[in-house]
């Protein structure tokens, strides 16, 4: 059972009710603009934000909860991990603060408690405690216009395609997050291009953990291979030297003392 959020950009009125609900649900304090924040409104204390674009476009930004998340694959201790419900959640008791997840995320979502002496990685966790209980996340519950809705991923994808079909002139024929980098649990349909939400407009369909997988799979072979090659070289050279010694040339027995 994979749960998801579908955000319809055409329906969002930019009221920020979702942002307020998120702050309340997750006990996030007031935010003060600091030099280390990005310009997208997200911060360690703002897990969702609404970007205002021309012609009354309001785009809600939040963690995309990838099906194969780069952050979870990058985390050396598995502090970030996917749950059966599809949420990508964070276990702060495991984290060691390397911030590789922040580097790996193609959407630049995870934020850091830069002003804390015991800092954690902060991002939307799809209100995991609530969805486990069968409730919906605070943000979708708070939305007054149903611009952002919660449900099963398959259902929402159907809804998204249905809406595009019914209104082909309005929407761009694309569901953002359906196949993007292996699929995400936060889906968007829109009448403007949403490429600006990620570091590059087109992310392709290959899940990011698969970029490191070949290298990681090669690790045991590289380890054993290098050992075998080195041992082989040494064996050959040693043999040659011993032969050379027998024929009277100067040799070396390999100890340095």
């Amino acid at each position, binding site marked *: 059972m994979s749960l998801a959020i579908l955000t319809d950009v055409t329906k969002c009125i930019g009221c920020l009710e979702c942002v307020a609900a998120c702050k309340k649900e997750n006990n996030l304090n007031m935010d003060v603009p600091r030099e280390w924040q990005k310009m997208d409104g997200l911060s360690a204390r703002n897990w969702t934000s609404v970007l205002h674009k021309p012609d009354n476009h309001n785009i809600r930004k939040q963690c995309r909860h990838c099906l194969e998340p780069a952050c979870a694959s990058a985390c050396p201790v598995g502090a970030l991990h996917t749950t059966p419900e599809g949420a990508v959640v964070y276990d702060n008791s495991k984290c060691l603060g390397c911030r590789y997840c922040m580097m790996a995320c193609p959407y630049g979502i995870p934020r850091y408690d830069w002003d804390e002496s015991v800092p954690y990685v902060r991002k939307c966790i799809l209100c995991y405690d609530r969805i486990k209980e069968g409730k919906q996340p605070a943000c979708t519950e708070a939305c007054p216009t149903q611009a952002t809705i919660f449900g099963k991923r398959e259902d929402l994808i159907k809804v998204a395609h249905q809406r595009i079909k019914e209104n082909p002139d309005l929407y761009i024929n694309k569901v953002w997050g359906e196949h993007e980098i292996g699929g995400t649990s936060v889906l968007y349909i829109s009448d403007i291009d949403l490429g600006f939400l990620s570091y590059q407009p087109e992310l392709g369909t290959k899940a990011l953990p698969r970029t490191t997988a070949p290298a990681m799979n090669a690790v045991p072979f590289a380890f054993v291979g290098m*050992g075998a090659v080195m041992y082989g070289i040494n064996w050959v050279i040693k043999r040659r030297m011993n032969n050379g010694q027998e024929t009277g040339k100067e040799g070396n027995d390999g100890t340095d003392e």
Partner: protein
Amino acid sequence: MVQMNRVQAVKTVLWSILGLTAAVGLTRFIFGLGATTNLSDATPWGLWIGFDVLSGVALAAGGFVITALFYVMRREEFHDFVKPAVLTAFLGYIAVVVGLLFDLGLPWNIWHMIIFWNPHSPLFEVGWCVMLYTTVLLLEFSPVPLEEFSRYAKIRTFLMKFRFPLILLGIMLSTLHQSSLGSLFLIMPFKLHPLWYSNILPVQFFVSAVALGFMMVIFESLVSHWLYIKDSETERIAKLGFIAAWVLFVYFLLRIGDIAFSGELGMIFTGTWEANLFIVEMLISVILPFIIFVVPRLRYNRKLQWVGSIMVVFGMVFNRINVGGLTMIRATGDIYLPSWMEIIVSMGVVSGAVLVFMFAIEKFHIWEERPRHPESNPYAPAAFDRSSGAWLGSPLLAASTRYSLAFVFAFAVGFALIPDNKIHSEGMDDIPVTRARGADTLFVDGNLNNFGVAFDHKKHEELTREGQACATCHHMNIPLDKNSGCWECHKKMFTVTDVFNHDWHASAGGAAIACDECHTPGQQRRAESAKNCEDCHRDLRVENTPIEVKAYLAPSYTDALHDICVACHLKKAVELADKPDLGLCPTCHGGETPENRRELYKYGQAARSLKPVVLPQVKKPE
């Protein structure tokens, strides 16, 4: 002053850097990363990863390449390089781990990698390899110090038996993590510039580490021989350089070949700054040093050996920094420059490693012929400081005194230099009060603009547990805090809000204002260096109001109401002749009477020439 020799001068400088590092390090662990670094949500990895970790590991590659050359390939002639190279590698890895402890947000959790596994993560692999390889290096090197103590001879012999397997294991582990450091960046195809991103990044990292390892051995040999005034091994360095040059050539083919394979060769000469960065990097890290060490006439030239090895060392560090973040600016749009504190810590970690290296060179049998101990020169003049007339003691004592002084002095300077506003997040200022205890009514000038507000001290006293709990407001335990600001209790009235929507102002869809239009060009972009709201929004405040609008903070509820209401009240009080009380404070604030305000006014004039808000003279109707 007592004459310092070369070694002593270098040591004094290194100890000073360590002193600065200690001050910065303390600050970092007490106040967090934001207080000391210029890292940000857009650039979460900075100098400490790019230099201390990525470059540090590569710079410590000398250990495994030299052992491979000597023990595996049996190249006898490089015997003298082995011990210093293994020592450099060992100290290098320790330095990497120490540098990493500064960078990690939760460094006390570093051991979590041992129990919580995520084998999909290249960083997990790097972490394990670095742990294991550091242990292997310790075992490889420990016979050298153990040589000094005859009672440990058995342990030494035992370790020596396992030397070849250890060397082999060290090479295998190095292969893994040197390459896996490249794998770290495979997951960022959208951020890293295509000239640096490559599917064979791990291979490129490994090959460049091998080349750099040789060059680092050369560089380390040149520096230490210069320091201790020994003849350097020009002949052998040239031989080593020749091998390194061909490794560099392979690296060059891997870089250029990969770019050609993905059809991006044209990109190199497009003239963008990344393209130029690439050309510079390739020139100093590969092309020029290759020429120096491949042409026989050049590679035997001592000066060119210096130049060539320094070029590779700098060039490869440059490469690691480029991959580690510098070429991601195009994607992230965030320009990161390390703060001076980050630079100091990076320098300090290296300084510490160099000091231990010098200690080992002086104490242990690392060179065939030990250097003369620099602090116990029998020919040194008496350690008597003529300028101060002080007796500094024996040369050794005088030297350690000098190092200690350098450390302590730098430590103090470091603390003095750390800017206060970077450590503490911007909050409310303490609000001074202009009359001592016991007064019934105080004149509080919170905005420090000489417009006071009447504060009923007596009433507040009564409210706080029958006048017994002065500490409610006057908590004496906080340094420099004379009293709590009004806003601490009257939060709703006085808290300012961060309603300024920076994103909207900067985004193309919003106000579309370029950064430099608000922020002073050339300065760091912060609230302080930006224009005030009123510079653009001229109608934000009515004229002659005492209310201030700070950089990005909207006025508090009270301030705003005073501004909006009072202005209109005053205007209407003049216009509407039948409602003269509109302009008087007690009309809204019952407790305040014109009498006590006059009193206050008198007091204020006498004490600090405070100006209460002056109301227009309104005639009461007959």
